[in-house]
């Protein structure tokens, strides 16, 4: 068996094997899942170190081949997916609120396998196959993570949003393949498509929708905050924080750089999308009162930076986008893990009920601080460097407005994390949390590992850039100059200013909120204009899914219902009515009366004889 297939096949086989294990066994399922994910991580590392190779199986003749290719970008993705899968499976070992262990690990391994497949697939149809597989497991992951009705509802919401956009992707891929004459991405890249005519623009927009929706960007993000409250922290740390971002941004990069040559308009569209995502999501994040929900809005917001980075279309920006992708996965995964730990130990994620936990949970707190600092772009952690690259790329395009938006986003991010950290880990500890203890080792280990990666990628930013980002850009056929290094230019000072502003804002908020850390953002929340906007957002006026479900879908479904009734009538009621009528007629006819039967028999015989004698008769 080829080495490439191990990260795909092994998790699937293990996941199926998991289903056979009795529910009563302890630790066996967990250990099997950890082993499978660690082994596939090792296999992924091995693949990454080997030179690029291709495995191809004929599938549906020669037109659609099942081709897996490990160019450096794909291998990097594979490695990342393996890493997060291993981390989350270790983390989930003693995580209670994740639903039935069997199904949790089944979904986890399946998601990993399909994500690996999607990352490796060179043929777009094969990629779509894996992509749609992820959709299925996204649904089961959420639906089985809790037994509540809300979990099912959110699962359906996620499924419908992603399903709709996946259909866009399907159509986009079909059109792209039709225009290019091939489904192989590497073949298309030799002769990239341009956006000169309508069909290719249409195809690209559809691919874009598919990609950014997977990444969870505005306006397809609305299921993520719901999932944060209705499913487990493990799920949040794995799928929306890591896997979805990795794949979405990966395919966005593939589509925008590898398959198509974009023009200025499309660049502007992408950057606007990124900036709007950053601001809208971070504004929402700022006022959240729930640990996981706040984090989930940041998961959306950070996607904006990546899209912004890719949208700059210059090497530095793209490098920033990809670097931010892996960094974000690292620290956001870590943050969700801390939220899971707090939830497990303190029993709640409501900010107003938490406080002063640093003393009780020092390791968790430390990891939180590192990851929060990283996400806020505080030097010299990894988030700082990737954001720097994105800023630089943005400035290079000449659209300063996007740079300012990104900086504003950065400011608000830091502000919200100040609020979050303050209200969870510092301040006064409530009475009922006096007994709180540190989370178990199996939960701390992956957290520490990810936090360590944040630090290492920050201090040694050269390392990931040389090892991962630069080869990835080469895989995308981009020539680039020096990407790294600490730029002691005005950008650095600007970031320091942003940090200071955020701290001042936090202090102001504290003062306005009467010293309560969880109310530190209320002065923004209830600011004159924003108040109404937030109120509308809380009524979900901006959530196209909810609006659609409330307004459009009922009317549409009513119309469909009427159409369905009609067809039902045509194929069901009418025939069964007719059959019933004929059957009853027959029952009334067969009265058991002998003369009637005799008359029928004789009449039939006479007609038969007359017809044959006159018609075919004696000719």
């Amino acid at each position, binding site marked *: 068996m080829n080495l490439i297939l191990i990260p795909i096949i092994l998790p699937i086989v293990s996941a199926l094997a998991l289903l056979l294990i009795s529910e009563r066994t302890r630790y066996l399922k967990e250990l099997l899942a950890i082993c499978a994910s660690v082994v596939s991580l090792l296999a992924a590392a091995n693949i990454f170190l080997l030179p690029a190779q291709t495995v191809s199986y004929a599938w549906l003749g020669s037109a659609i081949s099942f081709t897996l290719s490990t160019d450096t970008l794909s291998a990097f993705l594979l490695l990342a997916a393996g890493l997060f899968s291993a981390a989350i499976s270790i983390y989930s070992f003693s995580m209670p609120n994740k639903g039935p262990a069997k199904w949790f690990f089944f979904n986890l391994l399946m998601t990993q396998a399909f994500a690996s497949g999607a990352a490796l697939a060179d043929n777009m149809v094969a990629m779509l196959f894996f992509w749609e597989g992820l959709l299925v497991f996204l649904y089961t992951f959420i639906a089985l993570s809790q037994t509540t009705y809300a979990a099912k509802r959110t699962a359906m919401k996620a499924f419908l949003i992603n399903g709709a956009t996946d259909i866009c992707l399907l159509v986009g891929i079909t059109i792209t393949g039709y225009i290019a004459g091939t489904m192989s991405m590497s073949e298309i890249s030799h002769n990239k498509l341009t956006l000169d005519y309508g069909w290719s623009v249409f195809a690209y927009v559809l691919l874009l929708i598919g990609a950014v929706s997977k990444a969870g960007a505005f306006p397809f993000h609305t299921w993520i905050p719901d999932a944060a409250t209705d499913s487990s922290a493990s799920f949040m740390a794995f799928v929306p924080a890591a896997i979805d971002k990795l794949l979405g941004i990966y395919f966005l990069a593939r589509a925008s750089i590898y398959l198509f040559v974009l023009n200025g308009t499309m660049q502007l569209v992408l950057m606007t999308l990124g900036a709007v995502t950053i601001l809208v999501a971070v504004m929402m994040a700022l006022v959240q009162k729930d640990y996981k929900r706040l984090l989930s809005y940041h998961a959306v917001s950070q996607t904006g930076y990546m899209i912004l980075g890719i949208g700059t279309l210059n090497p530095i920006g793209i490098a920033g986008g990809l670097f931010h992708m892996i960094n974000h996965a690292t620290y956001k995964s870590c943050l969700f893990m801390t939220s899971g730990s707090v939830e497990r130990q303190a029993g709640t994620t409501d900010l107003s009920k938490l406080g002063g936990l640093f003393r009780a949970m020092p390791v968790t707190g430390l990891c939180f601080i590192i990851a929060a600092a990283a996400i806020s772009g505080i030097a010299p952690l990894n988030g700082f460097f990737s954001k720097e690259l994105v800023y630089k790329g943005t400035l290079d395009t000449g659209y300063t407005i996007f740079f300012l938006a990104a900086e504003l986003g950065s400011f608000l991010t830091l502000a919200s994390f100040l609020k979050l950290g303050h209200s969870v880990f510092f301040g006064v500890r409530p009475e009922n949390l006096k007994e709180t203890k540190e989370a178990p080792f199996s939960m701390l280990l992956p957290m520490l590992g990810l936090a360590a990666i944040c630090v290492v990628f920050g201090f040694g930013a050269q390392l990931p850039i040389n090892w991962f980002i630069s080869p990835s850009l080469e895989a995308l056929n981009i020539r680039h100059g020096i990407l790294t290094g600490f730029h002691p230019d005005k950008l650095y000072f600007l970031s320091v200013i942003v940090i200071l502003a955020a701290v001042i804002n936090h202090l102001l908020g504290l003062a306005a909120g009467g010293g309560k850390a969880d109310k530190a953002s209320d002065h923004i929340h209830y600011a004159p204009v924003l108040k109404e906007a937030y109120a509308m957002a809380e009524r979900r006026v901006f959530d196209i899914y909810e609006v659609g479900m409330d307004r459009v879908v009922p009317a549409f479904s009513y119309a469909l219902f009427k159409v369905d009734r009609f067809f039902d009538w045509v194929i069901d009621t009418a025939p069964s009515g007719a*059959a*019933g009528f*004929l*059957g*009853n007629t*027959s*029952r009334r006819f*067969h009265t*058991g009366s*002998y003369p*009637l*039967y*005799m008359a*029928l*028999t*004789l*009449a*039939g*015989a006479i007609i*038969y*004889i007359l*017809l*044959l*004698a006159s*018609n*075919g*008769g*004696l*000719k």
Partner: protein
Amino acid sequence: MDKGLLAYLLIPLLSAVIIPFAARTRPKMADILANVTLLAGLANLLWLALRPSMIAGGFADIPGDGLSLLLVAAVYLVGLCVTFFSAYFIEEGLPNRPAYYSLLLVSVAAMTGVVTTTDFFTLYVFIEVLAVTSFALITTDDSSAGIEGALKYFFLTFPASVLIIVGIAILMMTLGSLSYENLRLFMASDAPAGPVTFASALIMLGFIVKSGVVPFHTWTPDAYQGAYAPVSAHLAGIVTKISGVYAIIKLATLLRFFDGRAQALSEMLMFLGMLSIAVGALAALKQTNFKRMLAFSSISQIGYIVLAAGLGTPLAIMGAVFHLINHATFKTVLFLNSASLEKSTGTTDMDKLGGMEHSMPWTSWTSIVALLSTAGVPPLSGFWSKLLIILALWESGLRVYAVLALLFSIVTLAYFMMMQKKVFFGKKTPASERVQEVSAPLLAPVVLMSAIIVALGLLFPYFYAYVKVVAERIIL
């Protein structure tokens, strides 16, 4: 008359004559003799048809046209099932027990005569014998419904005999002979066929009445419903098929419908077949009595055979013959199971039955196999025969008939589903509350028949070889 198969007629007759004497002191002897006779005959037939050299030779050495052999086997099989079932079903005190077995054996002998003869008048004679035995068999249990069914059967089908005689008279006059071979040669020649065709049409009409094709079907449900329970299986399974449908198929091949020499008759036959399918299926939809519903379903299934016979192409004849065999198997299962239900619950009213699946699993599941085969669900045998028929219709350009046949096949499925839901699944009713499965000997025939249904379906390619030989021989 086929000399090689004469023994299959004579031995049951002999046995039938012996039974009243043998059973004078010990009534059980009647059961044993009848069963042994039929079992021996069946074993002999199986050896004749299924010995390895015969299979290896592609059935090239079967005696006669092969159809006779096949149908004699079917007659013996159903006869054996019914006698075996009766041996354990029949009430101890029934006074006419030896006569009952004698009549069954005479009816088997008569059916053997029907399928082995090569002459129209002899065919008529045997069919009259068969009819006479059937009337007495129907009234075996002295029930009010039985005598009603028998009387209706008697008076509504005997005018058909007269029609057959008139047809035979005209045939004798215009053909100079009554043998099949002469008719076949005559139809193959170029002589003007008008009077001969008219004579054949009259004979055909007689057999149409006797096989219960709409609009001559009115006696069928009454006779089947009123008949003594195992007899209704005998009647529906084989008697009416041999006494009517067999002759229709035979005439259809002799008249060479595929040549278009008897176009009007062919079209008439197909129309009546389609009418039967439709009326039978629609009437079955609203029935409440298990046996009566099966009777209407039988009318519908006979419609398929008549439709195929009316088409007359080799493929259609093959389908018709195969459907005849299948009909014998699945209708026997269903009627025997209805007898079991009647014995256990005391009723065949579907409104009073329910949830039998739990209390009588064997009966229920064999019934369901037979029902699905009747409705033509793959891979059971009924599917293949219906497929052949519909294919033949489609190939001959009779698209409307093909589509209608398919459609009413779905209606068949619909009423059987309804019936299954009422009787076998669903909630238990008071009548079926304390019901036990019937004893193993009563189940043995239906299990055997169900196995044959499944086997014929699964091993269809092998069986197809045989049926193909038969169809080629009787057509060419």
